[in-house]
């Protein structure tokens, strides 16, 4: 599998200096966001096991550094576009825990009014105008938002998050071509977790270097360590600046891995479609442990303070569950509402 440890080692020293240039506040902000996503998802997994959450959940555990690093480089008016595995994107872009937890419980107070469930998340205030599970579907939609920004002459950027499987859809290349042709303020973030549902990348392609797929399109295309939030943030910042300058789109292949299975709380080892050793090799590179190790060893914080943060986030998660549990269910009488905006006529 890709994402060799050599790459990580070779950038280790550099990483410390990059951390210094980011500064303590930014580093702790990144860490807090990673922890928020991780603990939220772990609680969601428990609620799935308990059948308190029944909507199909595709957990983001293991991939937190990608959403966190990218979204930290964005501002509120920038738009992001997600997919079936977007809890992390929602939280990283600034979404509140209560509204997403309520959506997972399909409550009327959820971010999509309980209509969407896990795969249809929405929050206009944070620049997230909808996630959908159709593979690659939001890639051209994101490009359309980038075109809108260009026509409106704002310097907002648009970011599409998608998995390695999405690069196998024809629409992916249609979107890449159009964005490059019109030099749109677009960032394509391919979260290469080496699995599409049950099928490994090696069973679907002759190459694992997805960033090379777009090389012929005159587009900046890079491969990033998706387990390293500092690298994700740095490369995303460059891509955002390029887009705001009017210098066109960037493709970022973030090598990462999901620690859980395709859908639901289990790890898919039980059904024999993943290799235990490979999974463990990625868990050894846990993005949170990596950052915490750096934060402590370089003196940005202490183990005791990290424990305090963890407890604070656990309280936030517990509050979101409490809020969701106490929220009303949607009223079934409204099932035909909103087929159209403004009513049926």
């Amino acid at each position, binding site marked *: 599998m890709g994402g060799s440890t050599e790459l990580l080692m070779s950038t280790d020293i550099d990483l410390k200096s990059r951390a210094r240039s980011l500064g303590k506040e930014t580093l702790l902000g990144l860490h807090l966001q990673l922890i928020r996503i991780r603990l939220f998802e772990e609680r969601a997994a428990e609620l799935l096991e308990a059948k308190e959450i029944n909507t199909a959940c595709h957990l983001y555990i293991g991939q937190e550094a990608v959403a966190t690093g990218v979204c930290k480089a964005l501002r509120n008016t920038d738009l992001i*576009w997600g997919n079936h595995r977007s809890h992390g994107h929602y939280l990283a872009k600034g979404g509140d825990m209560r509204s997403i937890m309520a959506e997972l419980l399909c409550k009327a107070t959820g971010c999509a009014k309980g209509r969407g469930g896990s795969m249809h998340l929405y929050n206009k205030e944070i620049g997230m105008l909808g996630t959908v599970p*159709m593979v690659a579907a939001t890639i051209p939609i994101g490009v*359309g*938002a980038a075109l*809108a920004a260009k026509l409106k002459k704002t310097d907002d950027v*648009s970011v599409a998050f998608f998995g390695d499987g999405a690069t196998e859809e*024809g629409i992916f290349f249609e979107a890449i071509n159009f964005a490059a042709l019109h030099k749109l303020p677009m960032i394509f973030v391919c979260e290469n977790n080496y699995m599409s549902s049950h099928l490994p990348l090696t069973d679907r392609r002759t190459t694992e270097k997805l960033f090379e797929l777009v090389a012929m399109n005159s587009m900046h295309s890079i491969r990033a360590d998706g387990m390293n939030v500092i690298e994700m943030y740095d490369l995303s910042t460059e891509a955002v600046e390029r887009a705001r300058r009017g210098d066109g789109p960037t493709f970022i292949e973030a090598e990462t891995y999901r620690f859980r299975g395709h859908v639901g709380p289990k790890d898919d080892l039980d059904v024999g479609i993943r290799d235990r050793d490979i999974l463990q090799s990625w868990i050894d590179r846990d993005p949170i442990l990596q950052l915490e190790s750096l934060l402590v060893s370089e003196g940005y914080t202490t183990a005791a303070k990290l424990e305090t943060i963890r407890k604070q986030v656990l309280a936030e998660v517990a509050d979101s569950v409490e809020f969701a549990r106490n929220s009303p269910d949607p009223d079934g009488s409204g099932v035909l509402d909103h*087929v159209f905006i403004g009513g049926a006529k």
Partner: protein
Amino acid sequence: MRKLNYGLAINEAFHQCMERDDRVFILGQGVLNPWYVGETARGLDTKYGPSGRVIDPPVSENGMNGVVIGAALAGMRPITIHPRLDFLNMGLEQIINEASNWAYAFGGQQSCPCVFRGIINRGGEQGAQHSQATQALFMHVPGLKVVMPATPYDAKGLMIAAVEDDNPVVYIDDRWLYAEEGYVPEEYYTVPLGKANTIKAGKDVTIVAISYMVKLAQEAAMILAQDGIECEIIDPRSLTPFDDDHVFSSVKKTGHVVVCDSGWKTAGVAAEISAKIVENVFDSLKAPILRVTLPDAPAPSNKYEELAYYPTARHIVDAVKKVCGAKQAPQFAVASSNGVSAS
């Protein structure tokens, strides 16, 4: 009264929408093509091209439908054009999975105001993949509005209404209508979506006809008038939303119904309209409803099979006589609009 042909009526709608609203832009295959169909893109490039609001895109139907959806979600009012419905079929995923669902799936919080214009290009020996009329697909999907103008007046007014609407609208026009001339006001106006139009009043039979079939229904009505049968022709103009009441009140008056659609028969637009009538005003019916549609077969290329394939006014005459109980078979020869004599 200023007259304009159907193609230029669409063109005028484009110009007036773009002039009034900076959010409107056009992304359409062939809009920069000098021999573009029906002159519907005339003058747009020189006027709006420099501002980037007229885009002739790569051949990527599904991707471009997605681009239009994304721009709409981000606050624009885009129009996309597919010069043939057959090619629009390559972009169905974004229309059926995405545009149609956006309002509902997110609890009514987000509008997706975009227009998908597709053109029917029947006949002319173009064969199975340059001739399809797939309006029924879009009428079937909740969350899509679907309009099919039959007159120059409606061609302009429905386009403007489609652009103004906060929902995705599939706008389907027919090349066989481009040369039709009619009254088109010079000013900006809308034809409300979901409002049918009585093309001609009559007491004996209701002919519900859409798009090009309205023209054939008018020809048929003239022939039937000679036999003393007074036809009422109703053009729904919008398939979704559908003006049930307008159609039902005509059926209550006449008790006889023929439904005419330019698409296929099975599970088609005419089937749906017939079912609506049977479910709601069955007691008014004096005879079974008949449909005049394409047969359930792909389009042929050679002109001889085309003659047998496309319905003409004569088919409507036959259907009307049958539902009205006429005993004699019709004896008329009709010149159909594709220039081929059908008798």
